[in-house]
């Protein structure tokens, strides 16, 4: 069994190993063309299997859609959640993959983003209610969605700094439990505070077209495709930004800190400052994703933002291949998509998810699509393995 697996792994490495190099060896225009086709395909995804404008279908592709099974969920709706999680994974990858900080409470930032738009943007929220009373405003007044975006970003950034400031001096494992506690605190505070709507949650959260209503033309309640395209556009924009950051001075500092914090400090890279940067940027991305989630749902409640979701986020990054943006995006997509597609398993979904985590980590600890540097780091570590265990 193990022999067969190892053999299979060898062959796979043989076939796939050269892919990255071959890709880099292509001329520039071919790479651009492929990328462009890829992006176009992403925008086409909600129609997967159909040809828009006709009622022709492409046989085969239909199989991938989540609504091709009985009791399956709306395909564009699932894609929208996938896009949100990809955004989360990109943000968390900055924290875990690039800066090497283990954050088990990332859901806290997601919640801060969601609650920002809910509390300031919804005419039915307690905060807006208090503002209306204070300034004698009409009962359907609320802060516009576009203004809620910077508010949400600012709040999650501040949350990141507030959490990071006291805790980033801690070593990895301690940081894990403290961040986990932070995520729980956010959820419990939201659940028990009158100004955050308590367990009942906050309804009436606006989207780009204002409060949810059947009259909204584009970002309405029934058709989720525009929401998916919006989330996808945000994801692509953030990918570009984070990519720039990764190859900047900040990105190289993160790398230095991850590989050897003390050495980096000696060379003049002040670890604390750059760790805090990673935390804050990661937090802002998580907050943005939370904002999109709240806007689309139009209603949030605190129980959504539980520890299990945090763990799912970390799993997305590690399974996909921490450190590599394409990898974590694939990880996020798969962990959001597969349970929806294979609903037939219904009660066995969580079991299958757990098994998959164990198997992937045992057989491919660097993740499905690892960064080249990460793979090398793992190989180095394996060489340093303690003497008599090998």
């Amino acid at each position: 069994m193990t022999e067969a697996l190892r053999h299979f792994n060898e062959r796979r490495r043989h076939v796939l190993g050269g892919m990255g190099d071959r890709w880099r060896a292509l001329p520039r225009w071919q790479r651009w063309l492929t990328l462009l086709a890829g992006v176009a395909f992403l925008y086409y995804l909600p129609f997967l299997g159909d040809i828009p404008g006709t009622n022709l279908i492409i046989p085969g592709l239909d199989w991938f859609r989540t609504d091709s099974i009985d009791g399956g969920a709306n395909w564009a709706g699932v894609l929208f959640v996938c896009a949100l999680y990809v955004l989360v994974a990109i943000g968390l990858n900055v924290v875990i993959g690039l800066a090497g900080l283990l954050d088990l409470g990332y859901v806290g930032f997601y919640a801060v983003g969601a609650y920002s738009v809910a509390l300031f943007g919804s005419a039915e929220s307690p905060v807006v209610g208090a503002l209306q009373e204070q300034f004698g405003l009409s009962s359907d007044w609320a802060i516009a969605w576009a203004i809620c975006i910077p508010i949400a970003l600012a709040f999650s950034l501040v949350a990141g700094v507030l959490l990071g400031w006291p805790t980033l001096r801690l070593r990895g494992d301690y940081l894990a439990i403290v961040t986990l506690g932070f995520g729980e605190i956010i959820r419990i505070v939201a659940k028990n505070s009158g100004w955050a709507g308590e367990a009942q949650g906050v309804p009436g959260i606006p989207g780009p077209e204002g409060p949810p209503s059947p009259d909204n033309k584009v970002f309405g309640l029934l058709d989720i495709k525009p929401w998916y395209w919006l989330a996808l556009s945000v994801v692509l924009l953030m990918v570009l930004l984070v990519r720039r950051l990764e190859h900047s001075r900040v990105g190289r500092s993160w790398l230095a800190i991850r590989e050897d914090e003390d050495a980096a400090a000696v060379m003049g890279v002040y670890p604390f400052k750059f760790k805090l940067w990673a935390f804050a940027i990661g937090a802002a991305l998580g907050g943005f994703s939370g904002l999109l989630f709240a806007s689309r749902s139009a209603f949030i409640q605190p129980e959504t933002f539980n520890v299990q979701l945090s763990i799912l986020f970390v799993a997305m990054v590690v399974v996909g291949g921490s450190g590599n943006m394409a990898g974590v995006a694939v990880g996020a997509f798969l962990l959001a998509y597969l349970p929806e597609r294979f609903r037939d398993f219904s009660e066995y979904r969580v079991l299958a998810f757990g098994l998959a985590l164990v198997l992937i980590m045992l057989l491919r600890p660097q993740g499905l699509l690892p960064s080249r540097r990460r793979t090398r780091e793992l190989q180095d570590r394996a060489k340093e393995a303690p003497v008599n265990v090998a």
Partner: protein
Amino acid sequence: MRRKYVRALGAVGLSAALIAAAGCQAEEDDTAGSSDCGGKIAIFGAFSGPNSGLVIPSRDGALLAVKQHNEANPDCEVTLQEFDTQGDPTQATPVANQVTGDESFLGVIGGAFSGESKATMAVYEAAGMVMVSPSATAIELTAGGNEVFHRVVGNDAVQGAAAAVYLRDVAQAKKVFVINDGTTYGAGIADELTKALGALAGGTDQVQEKQVNFAATISKIKAAEPDAIAYGGYTNEAAPLVKQLREAGITTTFLGFDGLYDPSFPKGAGASAEGVIVTCPCLPPDKAGGTFAADFEAEYGGPPGSYGAEGFDAANVLIEGLAEGNTTRADLLAWVDSYDKEGVSKSLKFADNGDVDESRVVIWAYEIKGGEIAAQQEIKLS
């Protein structure tokens, strides 16, 4: 090597084009049916995951209703499609979009929980699709002017008021200690009870889901010395709470709401559950019309748990509508709005806001005796 890659790319493109050319005409929808009878409805809720224990009985009740109907009317089959949301609003919204987007669905049973109902009712309203919930009891669901939401279960306000009447008149309590579990359901119903109790309410604590140690709550109860304790929440926390209360020597009346109308509560709490009062907006099985309890037991090998009868009723409201030849969503919605018939859990008629008509709500007090939930008396509201 580069040439090989280009060739591969070309091959992929070509095959894609071929597939597209061979693409066949989309199948015509044939589920609409030829007769004016039968049709498709959906049910959504937590059928898997940690909260499924509370929801599966109502789904089983609905499935039973469909089975009985289809056996009796083989020429007028109704299809019930299950959508599992795990009780999570994040999963319930794409499901709502799926159900509303598929024209063959005419109505929906759900949501099982108040949270997912609240998250999705705007979507169903935009599509004009009638919802009949077996178990979502939060007051605000029917307070927002939503046109499509209906429920076959009394809301928290009615039950809270009834429990207050029971505590005052039957249990003769002068001071009631009110505990809730901080969930939408538990906190909501405990608030209603506190309001209805007025000056009788003395002392309160809020616990949380998955809590097991209630030492602090018990100290507070001991300090307040109440004549009765009321708990808004579900079995998972109530069972250890009652156990610890009785072990600490507190023997005052303990009253729970329909969240504890659940056979696993006396099982979990064991001997400590004896004498616990459970209120429920549902008729005792032997008072209910028909043979529902016996049928359920024969089908699933156990008594109907929480909301099993409500699931059966909710399904029947829609099934009867379909059997009467309502083949559009608007017709089915109008049918439910004017529904007025004897159900298993109560006599059913909906008020304008979607609640069960107030005159039809019956609230019963049950007592746990010998590990069974035994009917004690009906609570008259006035």
